[in-house]
């Protein structure tokens, strides 16, 4: 029988030590090759020690990203780790409470432990792992991807309330309530408040979908303004319409479709 090598990743030190101690008692045959406090350390330890079982806390600091295209969710380090080496080791997730995750684990036959971990429950898990023979771990990638999406903070589904934008060396949080206009600038968007302006790395088209259409009106393909902040719309000699906002001097272009709609009100 090949040796059982176990990796533990848990960011809270007391719990990590307790799990190590408990596992020693419950599963004397296993060798604990690493007990790590964050995703990056766990990833390095995995490559070094090649464990065949990994106990991963779901919510902990994740591994450093190699490619920026990977959309990782801050704080869901356990899921990120499982995606990296879930096909080479049996994963046991540890979580304080994730209703959705627990349901998914049961459906997808991934083992899990709820905190605080009771020794009896840990013994069951160990028995199940041994029964499975620690051969080829089951494919769990698809399930993990769903999990990561489901456990991510709900930014996409809700109305936008905050925008963080860089302004030189500092990044600042802007309340959407304070914003009076958004203006497209190539791939970026200029956020305009009564007192300030900032650029965000997101296209206007992406942003518009998350705004309340009663509050913000798209007046042109390059501009969205707060309805309550509109001062006036004027037509110039060439027949083009321009909009000014209360308390601001700049003129924003207005599309003909919007002018028609605006006149109709």
């Amino acid at each position: 029988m090949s040796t059982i090598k176990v990796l533990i990743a848990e960011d809270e030190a007391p719990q990590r030590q307790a799990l190590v101690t408990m596992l020693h008692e419950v599963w004397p045959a296993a060798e604990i090759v690493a007990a790590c406090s964050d995703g990056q350390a766990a990833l390095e330890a995995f490559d070094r020690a090649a464990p065949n079982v990994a106990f991963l806390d779901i919510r902990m600091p994740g591994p450093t990203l190699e490619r920026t295209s990977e959309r990782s969710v801050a704080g869901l380090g356990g899921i990120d780790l499982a995606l990296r080496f879930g096909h080479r080791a049996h994963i046991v997730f540890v979580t304080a409470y994730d209703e959705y995750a627990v349901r998914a684990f049961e459906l997808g036959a991934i083992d899990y432990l709820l905190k605080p971990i009771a020794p009896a429950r840990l013994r069951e898990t160990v028995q199940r792992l041994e029964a499975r023979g620690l051969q080829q771990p089951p494919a769990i990638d698809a399930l993990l991807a769903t999990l990561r999406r489901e456990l991510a903070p709900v930014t996409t589904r809700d109305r936008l309330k905050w925008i963080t934008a860089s302004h030189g060396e500092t990044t600042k949080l802007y309340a959407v309530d304070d914003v009076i206009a958004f203006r497209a600038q190539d791939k970026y968007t200029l956020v305009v408040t009564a007192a300030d302006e900032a650029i965000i790395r997101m296209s206007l088209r992406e942003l518009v979908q998350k705004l309340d259409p009663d509050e913000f009106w798209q007046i042109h393909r390059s501009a969205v303004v707060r309805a309550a902040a509109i001062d006036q719309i004027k037509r110039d000699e060439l027949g083009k319409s321009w909009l000014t906002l209360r308390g601001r001097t700049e003129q924003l272009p207005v599309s003909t479709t919007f002018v028609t709609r605006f006149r109709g009100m």
Partner: protein
Amino acid sequence: MNDRVALNQPLPPEMVRRGTGVASYQNFPVFSATWLKKRTTLFALIIGPLGILMGIAEVVRSDRVWAAVLLVAHFWIGGLALTTAGPALATWVRHRRWPLARERRWVFAALAAGMLISFTVDAIVSSAMDASLASGTAALPPEPAVHGAGALALNFAALFLIYGLVGGGLAIRQFLAEPRRWADLAQQRELTELRARKQALDTHLGVLQAQIEPHFLFNTLAAVRSLVITNPNQATEAIDALVDYLRATIPRLRDTQLDSTLGQQLEICESYLRLMSIRMGRLTWAVHCAPALHGIAFPPLLLMTLVENAIKHGVEPKAGPGTIAIEVQRTATTLVVSVNDDGDGLREPLGSGVGLQNVREQLRARYRGHAQFNLTSATGRGTTARIELDLPPS
């Protein structure tokens, strides 16, 4: 209504639409003593110099000083009677504090009486003036008599209009609108108060949710369970900190009190940070606040929301040691409270979290523009949440 409106007090600022400098009489209830005094002063400032100018013109024209003095005096008396007689009577009426309907009737009567008085005074003064002027100069050609009833009515209507407008006719509009404006104001204030209460409740709810948030609760229990075996002393400390934290926040949830001090709020944050630092084993924290500032009033649980945020978004997702520092500084006119962490900084470009929304709205509801809240981070390194409150000068 009358029993509620204090006549000797200026109107609340929300009710006054204009009225600075000489027009400041408009800041007082219409037909109140102060209103009358300030309004009369204003008219005196107009009538006084105008009379003197007329006097000078008369001296230049006829070279008779005594006649000029008489003219000025007559003009002053006539002008003052015209502008002030009605309002003065109305003021007398209003200070009787009669029931509203009766007050209204008598205010109208007072203004009408005022018009009659000023008309009489004007007639007497004019004839006296004509007499004194006529004796010095060639008799003026008699004024063309106005013929016809229509012209006479028109003449009367014009007179009525002038006397009415100058003699308190404009004030009557304000007077009649006053009860409604008081009612509007009361409603507005009630709304503001309700809004402040709702914001405070939302914040309380947010903290309550965080306390019973399963991740916080079960992770704390898991940590305590682990420590009981490995480090009983720390387990005791953790339980003590948890008890402090719960005790400080739970009673406040029941009576949802709106008042608390900075010292109390810092204590809540400290017990929470103590617990988290035992749990995480990699968190260091500090609170810098001069003890003299502990007594300053500070809204409940705002600071706690910011500290929780710093843990959740600053320290927890970042590997390795993490630090949180609460700094309180007082300048002559402001109190600045900031929560700093050394996490990875603001990352998500968009957010819909309600915690910070609550902080902002509660500040707005309670301080109405006299509080600032902002969240910044030096690109990719640490985040600072900062609350700035205007303090009344001490």
